C-alpha cells in the first residue's frame, strides 16, 4: 500500500446548515448475523486475507424489495466451515432471512468482488463473484435458486487467479452484458513471506503481510457475451491486454466522456489507476494518465481501493471519487465533460480527512436536498497496528460529507447519528433503499463481524424520485443507461452501474433527491443509444420505465 503522507486540507468554517438524515445500525435486528471472515482479528498472515470483500443490494426474486448478498473471505489457519457468502432475503418488514443454502450459494473461500446483471436477459439478476482461485458465474434460475455455470459459460480458468473488481458492461452495445474482470496481483503461498515470519514485510516497524508492492501485477480481462449463455475472452482483441496492469481493485463502467459508449475505470492500489476509453469498435485505449485520472493532484500513485461515480458538480457529467490509504486524501476527479479530469480533493474540502485507510464509498443524496453527498467506510489493512501504532486505527468510524454545491463538501462528524461513529474495520459497502421509504440506506461489510445495516431516516420533507429501468433492445438490466434529471434549476446525471464502492453493487434503481422541487423532467439514454424524455413527472415515487414503452408503473411510497 502506498501513502503520500499528505497533511489534511484546512477545514473551512462550518456551514451551520442542518443535515436532515440520521443513520441507525439495524443489522442485528434485521437478521444479518454472519460475520465476514478476513484473517484473524489480531493478524492477517497473507494479503489474500486482508483485502476482504464487497456486498450487493439486489432484488434476486423480483418482488420489488432489495435483498442482500454479503461476500466472505477466509483465513489460512483454521478457516471456519461456515465462512460463506450469505444471501439474505428481504422479508419486507425490516428483517431478512438467510437463504444461502436454499439458494445454492453456500461456498467457502476467498471471495472479493461481485457484479450483478441479467447476463442472459431472462428477467432475473445473475451474479458473478471473483475469488482467489476460481471466479464463479451464478445463473439465477428464477425460482429462488442459483446455478454455478462458470464452466459452461466458458469463464473457467485452469490457473488460480486473484480476482478483484468485476463489472457487467455492454461494451459493444449489442444488448448482451459483457464482463470485465480485474485481477489484483499474482499470489502464491510458496513465494510470499508470511506475516510475522523472519524477514516478512515491514510497516512502520511492524512485521506484516507482504504486498502488493513487490508482487507481480494481475492481468485484467474482458469477456464478450456471445448471447447464448457463453462468453469469449476478448482481452487481447479489445486492447485491455495491452496494459501492463496495476494492482487493480474496484472496477466501474460508465460513460465518462459523454460519447454514449461505456468506458471502464479501475482503482489501482499503489499504482496509477486505469481508464479504458471505449473506441466504439470493440476496442479500448487506456488513457488515465493522459486524461488526468490516474494519480493525485501532485502526480503520485495512491492506494486506490473504492470508487464512487456521480455528477458531483451537477453539470450533467460524471466524476470519480477514489478512496486510499491513511495519511492520504481521497481523489476527486471532476470531469470537463469531454473525458478529461482534474483532481480536486484538496480544493473541494474532501481533503480534510486523511486519518483512515478508506474503502467502500458512495455518492448519494442522503438528505434528499438535491445534491449527492459522500460516504465512505474505513479500517486498517494491518490488524497488528492496533497495539503498536497509536495513530493508526484498525477499527475506525464511518466518514460522511455533505455536498455544499459548486464542488465543495463539508465533513459531518457526529451529526448523522451515533452509529456512524462506532468503529469497525470495514471494506465493501452498498447503497440502496432496502425499506422502500424514499431514501438511501447503506449495508457495510465489517471484517470478522456481522455486517452493518445503516437505515437512513430523513426528516427534511425534501422530495425524491427513484427510476427503475428495464431494457428491451438494450440489456435487460439497463446497465449503462444514463438518466438525467432536471429539477428546479438543477441538472443531475446518474448511470446504472454493476459495480462501485469497494467491489460492491448498489441498488440499480437510481435515486434522485429533489429538494423542494415538486416535479422533475427525466431523460433516459438507453445503452442501445435511443433517448426517451418524460416531462413534469410527479415526485416521491418510484417510476419504472421500460425501453420503448415509457413509464409502465409508478409506486408512491410514504415519505420517510
Amino acid at each position, binding site marked *: 500500500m502506498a501513502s503520500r503522507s499528505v*497533511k*489534511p*486540507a*484546512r477545514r473551512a468554517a462550518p456551514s451551520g446548515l442542518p443535515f436532515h438524515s440520521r443513520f441507525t445500525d439495524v443489522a442485528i435486528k434485521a437478521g444479518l448475523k454472519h460475520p465476514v471472515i478476513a484473517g484473524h482479528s489480531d493478524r492477517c498472515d497473507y494479503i489474500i486475507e486482508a483485502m476482504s470483500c464487497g456486498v450487493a443490494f439486489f432484488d434476486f426474486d423480483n418482488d420489488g424489495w432489495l435483498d442482500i448478498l454479503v461476500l466472505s473471505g477466509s483465513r489460512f489457519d483454521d478457516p471456519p466451515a461456515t465462512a460463506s457468502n450469505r444471501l439474505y432475503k428481504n422479508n419486507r418488514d425490516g428483517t431478512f432471512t438467510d437463504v444461502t443454502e436454499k439458494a445454492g450459494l453456500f461456498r467457502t473461500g476467498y471471495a472479493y468482488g461481485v457484479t450483478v446483471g441479467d447476463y442472459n436477459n431472462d428477467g432475473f439478476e445473475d451474479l458473478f463473484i471473483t475469488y482467489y482461485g476460481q471466479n464463479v458465474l451464478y445463473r439465477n434460475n428464477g425460482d429462488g435458486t442459483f446455478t454455478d455455470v462458470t464452466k459452461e459459460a466458458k469463464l473457467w480458468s485452469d490457473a488460480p487467479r486473484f480476482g478483484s473488481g468485476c463489472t457487467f458492461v455492454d461494451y459493444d452495445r449489442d444488448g448482451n452484458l459483457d464482463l470485465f474482470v480485474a485481477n489484483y496481483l499474482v499470489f502464491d503461498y510458496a*513465494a*510470499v*513471506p508470511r506475516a510475522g*515470519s*523472519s*524477514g*516478512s*514485510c515491514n510497516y512502520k516497524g511492524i512485521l506484516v503481510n*507482504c504486498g502488493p*508492492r*513487490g*508482487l*507481480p501485477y494481475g492481468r485484467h480481462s474482458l469477456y464478450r457475451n456471445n448471447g447464448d449463455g457463453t462468453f469469449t475472452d476478448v482481452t487481447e482483441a479489445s486492447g485491455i491486454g495491452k496494459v501492463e496492469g496495476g494492482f487493480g481493485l474496484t472496477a466501474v463502467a460508465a460513460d465518462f466522456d459523454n460519447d454514449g459508449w461505456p468506458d471502464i475505470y479501475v482503482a489501482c492500489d499503489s*499504482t*496509477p489507476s486505469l481508464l479504458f476509453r471505449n473506441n466504439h469498435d470493440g476496442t479500448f485505449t487506456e488513457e488515465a*494518465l*493522459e486524461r*488526468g485520472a490516474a*494519480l493525485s*493532484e*501532485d*502526480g*503520485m*500513485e495512491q492506494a486506490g481501493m473504492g470508487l464512487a461515480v456521480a455528477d458531483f458538480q451537477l453539470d450533467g457529467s460524471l466524476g470519480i471519487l477514489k478512496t486510499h490509504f491513511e495519511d492520504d486524501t481521497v481523489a476527486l476527479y471532476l470531469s470537463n465533460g469531454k473525458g*478529461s479530469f*482534474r483532481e480536486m480533493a*484538496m*480544493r473541494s474540502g474532501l481533503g480534510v480527512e486523511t486519518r483512515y485507510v478508506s474503502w467502500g464509498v458512495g455518492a448519494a443524496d442522503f438528505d434528499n436536498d438535491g445534491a449527492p453527498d459522500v460516504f465512505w467506510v474505513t479500517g486498517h489493512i494491518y490488524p497488528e497496528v492496533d497495539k503498536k501504532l497509536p495513530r493508526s486505527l484498525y477499527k475506525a468510524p464511518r466518514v460522511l460529507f455533505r455536498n455544499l454545491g459548486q464542488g465543495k463538501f463539508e465533513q459531518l462528524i457526529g451529526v448523522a447519528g451515533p452509529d456512524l461513529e462506532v468503529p469497525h474495520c470495514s471494506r465493501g459497502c452498498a447503497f440502496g433503499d432496502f425499506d422502500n421509504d424514499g431514501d438511501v440506506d447503506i449495508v457495510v461489510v465489517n471484517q470478522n463481524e456481522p455486517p452493518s445495516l445503516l437505515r437512513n431516516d430523513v426528516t427534511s420533507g425534501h422530495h425524491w424520485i427513484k427510476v427503475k429501468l428495464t431494457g428491451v433492445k438494450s440489456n435487460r438490466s439497463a446497465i449503462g443507461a444514463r438518466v438525467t434529471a432536471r429539477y428546479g434549476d438543477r441538472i443531475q446525471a446518474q448511470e446504472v452501474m454493476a459495480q462501485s464502492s469497494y467491489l460492491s453493487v448498489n441498488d440499480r434503481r437510481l435515486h434522485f433527491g429533489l429538494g423542494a422541487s415538486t416535479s422533475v423532467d427525466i431523460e433516459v439514454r438507453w445503452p442501445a443509444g435511443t433517448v426517451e424524455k418524460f416531462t413534469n413527472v410527479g415526485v416521491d415515487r418510484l417510476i419504472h420505465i421500460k425501453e420503448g414503452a415509457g413509464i409502465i408503473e409508478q409506486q408512491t411510497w410514504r415519505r420517510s
Partner: protein
Amino acid sequence: MGLLCAQKPAVEQAWDLLAQDKRSEAVALLRAEIGKHPANAEARLLLGSILAEAGETAEAIAHLREGVRLQPKAAMAHNALGEALTDAGDIAGARDSFRKAVELDPQFAQARENLGLALLQLGDLAGAAEQLDRAIRLFGDKEDAAYARYLRARVHTESGELEKAETQLRRAVTLRPAFPEAWSDLGQVRENLGDDKGALAALQRAVQLNPDGAVAQTRLGSLYLQLGKPQEAVTHLERAVRLSPDNQTALNSLQLALREIGETEKADRVKAQLAEIFRKRDRASQTALAAVRLNNEGAELEKKGNLAAAVEKYRAALELNPEHAGIRVNYAVALLRLGQWERGLEELRTAVRQEPSNETFRKALEDALAQAPASVRRPNLR
C-alpha cells in the same frame, strides 16, 4: 612572513590561511599540529569544522568528538559537532549535541535554531516549536531570525495551523526579502488557504529570486494548471523537469498542461518519462521482496542446521538488496557461526554504519567482538 607565522599558534595560522583561501594548507597545518599535540582542542574543532564544510564528515566527526571531549563546556564545540552529525544524517545524534550546546549556553540562538530543525526532522513538533520560538526571540527582529521563522512556519504547517504559518513566512520574507524558499512555502500555504492570487504572487517572487528552484517552479506551474492557465504552466514545469528529471509532480502536471495546449507528442514523451519512473519503482519493489524471500529461505536453512547453504541464500539476498541491514546482520551472524570472523565482523560493522541508531545491531557487534579471536578484533565500533 614565514617567521611571523612560525611564532603564531597553529590555530591562528590556520585561520590566516583560510582567510587567504588556502584551505588545504590550513588542513595540513592543523593535522600536523594535532599529530604533535593531540590534546589541542581548538585545532581539532577548527579542523573538524573545515572538514565538515568540505563534506568529509567521517573525519570531521572524529575530530569534533575529540574536541568536545577535551572542551566539554564549550557550547560552540557541541554545536559544531551537531552540525557535522546533521551533515552525516545522524539527526538523533545531532539533536543531543545541540541540546547540550543550549544547556551550556541558553542564549545561543544558532544552536536553538539547529535544535529546532533537528526536532522537526525527528517529528517532535512541540519540542521544535519551543526551540524555534526561543531562537526567534534571541535573534530579535533581524534578518538572522528569518530562517528560524521559516522553520517555525513548517512546524505550523505540519500542525495544520496554516494561518500562523502564513504569518511567520510573511515575517521571514520581510526580514530577508531575498529568501526564495520562504516565498515558495508562502505560496504553498496561501494556496492551501484558498488564496490563489496571493499564492501566485509569492511563487512568482520565489522563482524570480531563484529560477533554479525546482520546488518553486513545480508549485508555480502546477498552480497555473489548476487555475486553467496551461500555457503559463508549461514554462515553469518544463524548467522544473530540467532541474529535477524524476520529479513526478512536475512531470504529471507538465504532460497534462501540454495536452491542454495541444502539444500531444511532447506530452506523450513526458508521459513516457513518468511511466519509466513507475516501472523503476516496481522493479525495485520486486527486487526487495525477492531479497526478503531469499533471506527467509536462508533462515529456514539455518534453523535446519545447514549453515553453509543459509550463508549462500543470505549472500544472494544481500546482492539484491544491499541496503537491507537486517539481511546483512543475518548474513554476518551466519558467517560468524561458520567461523568466518573477519567477513562476519566486517558485515556487522557495515550494518551498524547503515543503521547507526539500531541498538540491536550495535549490541550484536559488541558481542561478536567480545567473542572474536584477538587477531581479528578492531577496537572502533564506528
